[in-house]
């Protein structure tokens, strides 16, 4: 993901938690109802997503009919093609067709509400089939990047937080931020130039079936998340290290390692989990550039191509899919959060305090 989420993450996450209902976990059924509510809430969001994406695609000046016809199509053929594709209908009719279906022997489909958007204008593949086949590839990349980001970000965050404002803190901060401050394609280019071209350690084309080839894209993709996780860990750790219970632990004679790793880290990681969840969502959507540079077959490159080619059904299907995934991940993180933090009940019953506490 590009740097757009930097910094906001911490605040976003807490605002996110704030709308979790008070009775979370009090009874099993409350939990179930909560999950159901979140899923129901997805419906207006998805409708909104499709509407916004459809509107944007509608005004995009590309012309799928022209593209399909190729050069020098006669005006008659062009008119015929637009009619066949349903592109001559008014905006609202076209949008309605995407939701409720379109009848045509070649271009017809059952509609988004029935889980069928027909075939892509460009690749002529069944849209959801293509999404489902390319999504695992993006998943591999994102999960790898998230793991790398966590593996590097958390320890660096801890080191920085245990000695704030020290030289080590500064150096680590700068190194972590470097990753988030370079344009992704620049990082990728330098990595390829160094490790593929000159050192010949890793290939320059990434392929989901070859682990070695995934190293460079994963590093590229994880840079930004790593910086975010590192900073979140650092500030959360700094916060926790100020807490009374850390002093209690010290007064009890616990050694510094126990204090940091047992007492502080477990508390400090709670917000990091939320951020990691959000990061995972943004990594999924954000693999676009990485995929493009490493010519990696993922969902991201399919979506970008679809936008440029005005492949409206493809982009609608893909964006909806990503939005659903994003929501499911956030929901999973919220539920996970409850298992990690035993306070969850009391935290949520004093949600106002929590929100204020973070400003």
């Amino acid at each position, binding site marked *: 993901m590009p740097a757009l989420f930097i910094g906001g993450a911490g605040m976003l996450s807490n605002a996110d938690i704030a709308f979790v209902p008070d009775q979370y976990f009090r009874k099993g059924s409350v939990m179930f109802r909560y999950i159901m509510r979140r899923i129901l809430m997805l419906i207006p969001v998805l409708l909104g997503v499709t509407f916004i994406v459809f509107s944007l695609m509608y005004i995009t000046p590309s012309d799928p009919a022209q593209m399909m016809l190729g050069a020098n199509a006669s005006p008659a053929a062009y008119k015929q093609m637009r009619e066949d594709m349903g592109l001559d209908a008014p905006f609202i009719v076209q949008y309605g067709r995407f939701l409720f279906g379109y009848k045509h022997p070649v271009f017809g489909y059952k509609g988004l509400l029935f889980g069928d958007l027909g075939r892509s204008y460009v690749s002529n593949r069944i849209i959801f089939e293509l999404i489902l086949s390319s999504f695992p590839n993006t998943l591999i990349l994102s999960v790898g990047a998230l793991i790398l980001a966590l593996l590097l970000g958390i320890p660096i965050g801890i080191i920085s937080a245990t000695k704030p404002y020290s030289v080590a803190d500064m150096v680590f901060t700068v190194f972590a931020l470097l990753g988030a401050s370079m344009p992704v394609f620049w990082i990728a280019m330098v990595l390829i130039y160094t490790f593929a071209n000159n050192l010949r350690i890793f290939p320059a084309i990434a392929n989901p079936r070859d682990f070695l080839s995934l190293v460079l894209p994963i590093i590229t993709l994880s840079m930004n998340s790593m910086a975010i996780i590192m900073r979140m860990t650092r500030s959360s750790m700094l916060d926790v290290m100020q*807490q*009374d*219970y850390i*002093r*209690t*632990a*010290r*007064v*009890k*004679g*616990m*050694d510094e390692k*126990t204090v940091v790793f*047992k*007492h502080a880290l*477990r*508390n400090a990681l*709670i917000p990091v989990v939320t951020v990691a969840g959000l990061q995972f969502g943004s990594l999924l959507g954000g693999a676009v550039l990485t995929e493009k540079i490493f010519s990696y077959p993922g969902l991201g490159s399919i979506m970008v191509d679809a936008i440029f080619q005005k492949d409206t059904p493809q982009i609608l299907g893909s964006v909806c899919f990503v939005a659903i995934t994003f929501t499911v991940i956030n929901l999973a993180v919220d539920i996970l959060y409850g298992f*990690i*933090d*035993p*306070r969850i*009940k*009391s935290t949520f019953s004093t949600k106002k305090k929590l929100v204020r506490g973070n400003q």
Partner: protein
Amino acid sequence: MDKILEIKDLHVHYYSNRRTVRAVNNLSLDMQRGRVLGLVGETGAGKTTLALSILNMISAPQGKIISGSIRFDNTDILGMSNQELRELRGKDIAMIFQDPMTALNPVLTIGEQIAETIFKHEKVSKAEAWSKAEEMLETVGIPGVRAREYPHQFSGGMKQRVVIALSLACNPRLLLADEPTTALDVTIQAQVLDLMRGLIKTNNTSVLFITHSLGLVVENCDEVATMYAGEVVEYGTVKQVFGNPLHPYTKGLLGSLPDYSEGSPRLRPIPGLMPDPTNLPKGCYFSPRCPNVMPQCHELHPENSSIEVHLVKCHQYQENLHVEQSI
């Protein structure tokens, strides 16, 4: 009587942005074994700093013990290695903090938190440590089965009981109780204090009882020390100090307590504020607020004057040790 704690000429400073906060200044204080010493003073007088200094927990780089010595059972705490300090803390000297709400780690069960201390300091297995922790909880009146619960599942008073159990788990010789009941409401306060008193008695633990409540001192302490701007200005038995306060500050403190006896004058608060610890006045620190201020008070810092074991830091008594007898 043997002294469990001897503090001599202690100076503790905090640093922030080229300014030095002189939190503890030339403080000397002795504690007798098995006794309860009350430490009273306003907020910011350096009480908590003193307690943390006794544990050598003033953390660099923000704070530093500049000079002085702290001897605990005749060993120099300030000269100890980190390893020795960690063995001392929790085992020989324990501390209870003001706010039980935040003193317990929210993600660990209370049993874990107690057992951890026992496991660290005593040669026991984890299981033994756990059962000892449950015992400790029983001692403070919490069913042992609740050891598996998390701090948020306890009320404030219960939490403070847990904290007490935690601090007394290894039978410390010295307990530093930093306003242990301030955050609790009055009825709970009494229960907790009763509990503490009982446990202290049975274990013969010495206690440094930090509070700003004079009433609690009278009820619970054997000796009392008054702190002002980082130094002890008066020290004596409860009877001595409260019966016959010498230092104008102590007098002021007592005067600011409501007196319900008939015909007593209205509440008299001490005028003025504590001096800025980054910029302490020359001479006596209390001089700007002192009703009986004398010219030398602005120039010279008073030394301890002793009337038997009743110590006071005031020029009045340095000039004429017998003045007080005439009052």
